[in-house]
């Protein structure tokens, strides 16, 4: 198809879609309205199970089965990236040479690294209490390790990041999520039902039944997945070269 014909097609299709979308928008409930039946019920259920962060309660209690699907997507995507970005037969590895790093960058990266790592772990641990949780904290913790790549060099990063270990950690975290779900079956309730553990005191670290456990499993999975993903892309950029 020529470029011109394609633009015409996009204009016609996009125009029709825009008309439909605008018609649909005009029929939606008004922005900022007070009627949120599902939200009100979710808040009530979350408070009944002593989980201060309603979103954590939805993700790891009320919709825990959907989150299982979500972390499976994450796991499958990481698997796909590992397979796609492996070293092929006509490529070889070159040892990256250490590059000089500006002193302020080095100082700043090394000073912020422990703070960022601690922040990530804090956000994971307080997922059921304050905004955040396994998904967000996992990304913070995983990227904080890569400050070492900015502040020192690639070899220093490789020393603290044995990728194989993180791949195992990724799989173990998904298994931990499944095992927590199956524990419900063995305990005589339903798969991933949050009725096994005591709900604890509202607004403390151990409140929410299985929510902190599932949250921690997801935090570990996301942290490991991001480390593995970034490692594969960095491998392609820094180490793997074409030709013999």
């Amino acid at each position, binding site marked *: 198809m020529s470029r011109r014909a394609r633009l015409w097609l996009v204009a016609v299709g996009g125009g029709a879609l825009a008309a439909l979308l605008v018609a649909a928008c005009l029929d939606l409930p008004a922005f900022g309205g007070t009627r949120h039946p599902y939200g009100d019920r979710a808040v009530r259920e979350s408070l009944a199970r002593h989980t201060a962060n309603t979103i954590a309660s939805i993700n790891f209690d009320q919709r825990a089965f959907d989150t299982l699907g979500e972390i499976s997507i994450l796991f499958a995507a990481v698997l796909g*990236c590992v397979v*796609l970005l492996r070293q092929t037969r006509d490529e070889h590895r070159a040892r990256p040479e250490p590059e000089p790093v500006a002193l302020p960058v080095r100082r700043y990266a090394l000073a912020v690294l422990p703070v960022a790592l601690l922040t990530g772990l804090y956000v994971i641990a307080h997922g059921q209490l304050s905004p955040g949780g396994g998904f967000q904290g996992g990304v913070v913790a995983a990227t904080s390790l890569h400050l070492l790549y900015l502040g020192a060099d690639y070899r220093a990063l490789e020393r603290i990041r044995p990728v194989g270990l993180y791949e195992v950690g990724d799989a173990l975290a998904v298994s931990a999520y499944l095992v927590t779900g199956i524990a419900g079956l063995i305990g005589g309730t339903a798969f991933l039902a949050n009725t096994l553990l005591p709900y604890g005191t509202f607004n403390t670290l151990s409140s929410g039944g299985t929510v902190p456990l599932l949250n921690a499993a997801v935090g570990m999975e996301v942290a490991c997945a991001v480390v593995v993903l970034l490692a594969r892309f960095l491998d392609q950029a820094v180490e793997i070269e074409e030709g013999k």
Partner: protein
Amino acid sequence: MGVLPYLVAAWIFLAGCYGLATSRNLIHAVGCLAVCQSATYVLLLAVGYRDHATAPVFSDVQPGSRPVVDPVVQALTLTDVVVGATVTALLLALVVQVSKRHGTVDPDALSELRG
């Protein structure tokens, strides 16, 4: 004001679609897909918004003292962000391989099949 946030979501989605259809670089196309996806974040959060409400987190808000925004759509947005990020990573990995095998990232130049 009533429907403006929904229209903004629709506009972001269409802008992303236009970018996808006219893209001349696969990395740019992946970026456009991310733009399309961010339209769903705007739409979901707009649906869940409630006037004069706060975040649905009760660690420092007395339950029942203030209205809160809809937490269900916020959880859906979180799911959306995670899936979007992983799909973007997977697509970029595909682009790396396409560029290695074919020596180009222009989708128009990739039309013929190669063994």
